[in-house]
């Protein structure tokens, strides 16, 4: 698979998510950005992922939805996941989506045995990630606010471009 973006390019490709613009021009840019996000949400892959997120969250609105004492899905985690899905480049396949026992949102890309990548978004803007890359492992934690964090992108890029099974 060829990606149009290199990891180093990725974060700067997106303007801030949390807008602080005061000027008329800034507000125009904000509206243009919102329109772009709406258009992106309408594409097949993102639309499918957002629908899967809604289904998963809808199934976890009450505590103990998993039978093992799970917390209900946290609205802030849900919105963080929506934001991330809308910002991922179209070259990134739509992930599988689930809710974690703590009410966070879990995203998963699975390329085959021993080749997988995962992300969890919580209600405090933390983005934790972990990957299986054959005999290699990688995991970390970043704050997801204005930009998709670079180390997360680099590890996702490793998943997408590695020589592992698909």
């Amino acid at each position, binding site marked *: 698979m060829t990606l149009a973006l290199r990891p180093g390019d990725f974060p700067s490709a997106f303007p801030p998510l949390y807008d602080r613009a005061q000027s008329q021009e800034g507000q125009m840019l904000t509206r243009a950005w919102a329109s772009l996000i709406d258009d992106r949400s309408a594409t097949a892959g993102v639309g499918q992922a957002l629908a899967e997120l809604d289904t998963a969250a809808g199934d976890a609105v009450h505590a103990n939805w998993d039978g093992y004492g799970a917390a209900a899905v946290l609205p802030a985690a849900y919105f963080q996941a929506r934001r991330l899905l809308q910002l991922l480049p179209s070259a990134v396949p739509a992930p599988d989506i*689930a809710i974690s026992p703590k009410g966070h949102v879990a995203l998963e890309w*699975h390329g085959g045995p021993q080749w997988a990548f995962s992300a969890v978004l919580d209600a405090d803007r933390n983005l934790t990630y972990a990957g299986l890359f054959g005999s290699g492992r990688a995991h970390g934690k970043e704050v997801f606010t204005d930009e998709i964090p670079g180390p997360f992108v680099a590890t996702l890029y490793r998943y997408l471009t590695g020589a592992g099974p698909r």
Partner: protein
Amino acid sequence: MARFLLSRSHFAATKGRVKFAAFLPGPEGALSMYAVQGLADPAVWELGDRWVAAPATRTVHARAELESRLIREPLRIELDDDPPRHRSVIGWLAEASEQQQLALELANAARLLMRSA
């Protein structure tokens, strides 16, 4: 060892795969599973119905099975038999990303069994 799945978001039926979120530890820091070795298939589902689904007023849609030998350090299995055949997988590392890594490995090694209609 079996983990009963009550949420369809915890498995991908068309891909025959369990998602890693199904293996993340619960709010109390343990992963609940059941020892099912030696049980006939209907008895395994009955175990899930009685002790997992019924108290939550939910339905068991599938189960993830994992050989206990694949639960490795730092994780370990605690035999509490409360409810019967219940096991707690404990020893999870403190960092969320480390827990996520372990759950991803467990899911990767697990087998999905769907419940027939």
